[in-house]
Each structure stands twice: as structure tokens, then as C-alpha cells.
């Protein structure tokens, strides 16, 4: 008898139950997402971009094609040899675009990941403990929110110096407060529910409760915000590189490529136009997926 009711067994049972429930939730989410044509289009486009980015080195070697200058072929319009033309240093635009996709996706995903971890932790602590700690954390977040995120990112990069790591750090710091707010709000809405009380009653500690019981239940809004956040991070990366505060040449990055082509806008507009189109397509795909996820996760739209 006592063996059956021991806290360990109860905990195990409940975690088994959540795993099963989660699996069916994911299946349900996918079922609803599949009905949304726009979201599926977004996933397909994103898939193509990711595949191109992963195999970028095989399609066009970095050192030999994406970086190496070839001045006699500069500013060529799209043709059979260079399907998207060449840039101001005679480098193949397509090769640079797919290597640029690598940079953009990397920065976008890692920056958002870092801000979800930081913001999520702060928000969970603030929401779970409440009181003074909550006040202090959220007032600090208010200060961060008072600075438009692109300005904060620019300030951080200009102080630390422009490179990939600092850029990623700057972009993630500037979006920490929004995740902290989202996570805090959902933690507050669930922390008084009975299953949390039950976990407390069987002696689970705060860390265990937050990590195993609260966090999984706050994931839905974070995933939606995160998908849209990757789009925002890619835009910020391109914007910062455009003003010379991001990825430094000769590394291929969409914003930097665009900026490099500015001088030749009159004679070779493709150098500026094409990286911009790449940005628009990527952001569009991410936004479609994000919107689709939001609709699929919205209980009001379940029917």
C-alpha cells in the first residue's frame, strides 16, 4: 500500500501521463497546422532555405566561390554562369546568398534561443515567487523595454565591437524583456492551479515544479513569439550589418551585401535588390509559420 502511494511513484505516473498527453497535443497541433495552407507554404519555403543553408558548402564552396574576388566579372547581371549575377567584387550572388542564409538563420535561432532562456528564467522566477523579487525583476525589464530594441542592440554592438558573437548577444539581450513578460503572465495564470498544489503536496521542490510542471505549460505562447522573434532577429541582423555594425566583410550577410551594392544602385540594381528579396521571403515564411502556430494553439479557434 505504502509503496503504491509513495511520492516517487505518483510523480512517475504523472510524468508518464504528461508525456502521453503532450504527444497527442503535438499531433493535434500538426493536424490543425496542416489545414492552414499559408502556414504550410511557410514551412515549405523555410524548409528549402534551411536545406540550401545546410548544403551551402557543397553547392558553392565558401573560400573558392563565396569569398574569392574576381574583379573581371564584377557587377554582371544574372546569366547562365551566374544565375543571380555577380556583386561589386565579381563574386557569385547565389553562392553568397546561401552562405548568408546560414549566417542569418544561425544568428536568428541562437539569439532567440538565448533570449528565451534568459527571459524565460527571469519571467518564471518573477511570476512564481511574486512579491518583491517580482517587482525588482519587472522594473528592470521596464527599463530595457523603454529603449527601442534596435537602439539597444546598436549601443551594445558599438561598445563591444562588431562581430558575430556580440551581434547575437546584443540582439538577444534586447528581446529578453518580452519573453520575461510572456512567461511571467502564463506562470501567474497556472501557479495556483490544483496540479501545482498536488506537486507541492507530494514534496516536489520549487526547481522541480518550475521546470517539470510550469514551464511545459507556458511553452505555447513562447513558441509563437519565438518563431516571430527569429524573423525579428534576422531583420535586426540585416539592419545592423547594413549600417556596418554587424557581420564584417568579406563574410556574406544579406544586410551587408545590400549595403555593398548601394553605390551601384544606378548601374547594377540586382546587387541591392536580390539580397532584399531573400530577406523578405525568409521573414514572410517565418511570419506565416508563426501566425499559423498562433491560430493552431488558440483555444478559441479550436472548432
Amino acid at each position, binding site marked *: 500500500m505504502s509503496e503504491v502511494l509513495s511520492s516517487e511513484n505518483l510523480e512517475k505516473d504523472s510524468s508518464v501521463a504528461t508525456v502521453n498527453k503532450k504527444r497527442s497535443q503535438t499531433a493535434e497541433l500538426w493536424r490543425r497546422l496542416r489545414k492552414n495552407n499559408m502556414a504550410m507554404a511557410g514551412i515549405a519555403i523555410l524548409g528549402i532555405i534551411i536545406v540550401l543553408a545546410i548544403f551551402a558548402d557543397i553547392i558553392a564552396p565558401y573560400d573558392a566561390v563565396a569569398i574569392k574576388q574576381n574583379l573581371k566579372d564584377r557587377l554582371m547581371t544574372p546569366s547562365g554562369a551566374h544565375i543571380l549575377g555577380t556583386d561589386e567584387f565579381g563574386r557569385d550572388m547565389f553562392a553568397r546568398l546561401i552562405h548568408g542564409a546560414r549566417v542569418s538563420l544561425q544568428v536568428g535561432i541562437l539569439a532567440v534561443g538565448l533570449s528565451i532562456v534568459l527571459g524565460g528564467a527571469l519571467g518564471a522566477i518573477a511570476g512564481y515567487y511574486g512579491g518583491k523579487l517580482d517587482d525588482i525583476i519587472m522594473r528592470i525589464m521596464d527599463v530595457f523595454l523603454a529603449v527601442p530594441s534596435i537602439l539597444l542592440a546598436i549601443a*551594445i554592438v558599438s561598445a563591444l565591437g562588431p562581430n558575430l558573437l556580440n551581434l547575437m548577444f546584443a540582439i538577444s539581450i534586447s528581446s529578453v524583456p518580452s519573453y520575461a513578460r510572456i512567461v511571467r503572465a502564463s506562470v501567474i495564470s497556472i501557479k495556483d492551479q490544483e496540479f501545482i498544489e498536488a506537486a507541492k503536496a507530494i514534496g516536489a521542490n520549487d526547481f522541480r515544479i518550475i521546470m517539470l510542471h510550469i514551464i511545459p505549460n507556458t511553452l505555447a505562447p513562447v513558441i509563437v513569439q519565438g518563431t516571430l522573434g527569429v524573423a525579428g532577429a534576422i531583420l535586426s541582423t540585416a539592419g545592423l550589418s547594413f549600417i556596418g555594425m554587424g557581420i564584417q566583410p568579406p563574410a556574406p550577410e544579406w544586410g551587408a551585401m545590400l549595403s555593398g551594392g548601394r553605390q551601384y544602385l544606378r548601374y547594377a540594381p540586382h546587387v541591392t535588390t536580390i539580397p532584399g528579396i531573400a530577406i523578405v521571403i525568409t521573414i514572410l515564411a517565418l511570419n506565416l509559420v508563426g501566425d499559423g502556430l498562433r491560430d493552431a494553439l488558440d483555444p478559441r479557434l479550436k472548432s
Partner: protein
Amino acid sequence: MHKYIFKRMLLLIPVLLGVAFLVFSIMSLTPGDPAELILGETASKSAVLALREQMGLNDPFFVQFGNYILDGLKGDFGRSYTSGREVFGEIFQRFPNTLILSVIGVIIAILIGIPVGIISATKQYSLMDSISMIAALLGVAMPNFWLGLMLILFFSVGLGWLPSGGYSDWKSLILPSITLGTGAAAIITRMTRSSMLEVIRQDYIRTARAKGVSEKKVINKHALKNALIPVITVVGLQFGYLLGGAVLTETVYSWPGVGRLMVVAIRSKDTPVVLAAVIFLAAAFSIVNLFVDVLYGFVDPRVKSQYK
């Protein structure tokens, strides 16, 4: 209500102090010696040391920050390392240029976003709705610096109708404010549409229709008032972002505003200018947000009653 406004304004003080502290700490991480930067590489060591002492660079961090705030309250944000002029004057001279761009950008966004959003919602799933939703998706996805370059390519380089940069007359305002307003227009369109759709489904709208009120009156009189409440927040937020986002647009159009001043200052490591520019834009952003919150109270009686 007055009490609420007063309270909100008081709350602004610690936030702005926090912003100043945050940006001051970040900028103090900048490598390099400002005294050396001002005097040049050829300066003698003793001259650099003397200037460091004079600038207060040898003081502890918190003393430096305290002095910065005290001087700042008197309107003294130091002098630019490169031009030697007062930072406050430099920023104040350019701030109206940034403001005018953001204001026109927001007006364009409202004039496009709200009507298109309403039409999309009232004619949901029509061709018009699909077209405007696709346009709004593109508007959100477009980086504004790229849109700026494309507009220059088309209207300045191609057609030769409008200037590609600088600020001389009203013509030079057109392209930058369209560039700045497009993203906001897209977001306002989407917000207006979804808010309107939500309101239209409510019971009181059904009642109005059942009473035989004309469709036009139902939309314009009954639905619109409630649908626009959340839109106000979005408009306010967008206005704030435009002030910050002007950095990129101003760079594209060589616009003589605070954003461009800041970008130039960053390149020449002119820390006092960068610091003051970020604090100024953040302050403007916060004041706009405060204004929107107060306006919200006036528009929505439910919110208003909470403040009493």
C-alpha cells in the same frame, strides 16, 4: 484621472534614470581612451593624463555616472569628441527632423491601415481582403532600409521625380516617410482587421442589426468605436518604434536627424553623442507610450473607471 496622469509621469523618472544608467554602463565598456581619441595619437603622455583627470575619467564609475546625470539635468551632455560642439545642441537641432519624419510616417500608416483594415474585416474572404492581407504580410516582412533603396531606385534613379536623399524641401520628405510608414501601416491594417472581426461577432452588433439599423451605421457607429480601442495602443507603439527605427531610414536617405547623427558618431567612436542620442530617443519613446496610455483612459470608459 489627473492623479493617474501625475502618477504615471512620476514613474517615468526612475525608468529614464534606469535607461540612462543602462546605456551609460554599456557605453563605458567601449574600449579605448577618450582622452587619447580627442588629443590624437601624437599627444604626449602627460597631456593625455591631464585631460583624463580634467574629464573625470579617473573617478569611480558611480561618481562619473552621478556627475553625468547632474550635468544632464542642467542640459549639459558633454561635448562631441569629434566636432567639439555641445552634444545637447547637436541633438536638439536634429530632433525636429526625426520627429517630422515619424509623425508623417504614422499619419500615412493610419490613413492606410485603418480604412483598409475595416474594409478587409467587413468583406472577409473577399478578393479585396486577400489582396490587402497579402500586402500587409509583405509590408511586415520588408526591411525598411531595403524598401527605402527600392523606392530610390524607382522614383529617383528611374523616374527622376523625387530626390534620393538630404533634406531641402517638402519633396524630400515623401520617400523617407513612406519608407518609415509602410511597416506600421501593415501592422495597423492587421490589427484593425482582427479587432473589427472580433467586435462584429458580438451580441450587441447582432442586436443593432436585428433592430434594422443600416449596415453602414452598424459598422461606423457601433462597431468602429470599440474596434479602434486596441488599435490606439498599436499606433502608439508603432510611433515609438518609428522614432527608434528612424536610424536605418535616416541612413538610407542621408536624413539630418538624430538617428543618422548617432550612426556617424558610432563610426567615429564619439561616445557622448551616442550616449545622449540613445537616451533622447528612449525618452521620446517612453513619453509617447505614456501619452498613449493616458489617451486609452479617455477613450475607453472601462479603463477610465479604474483610475478613479
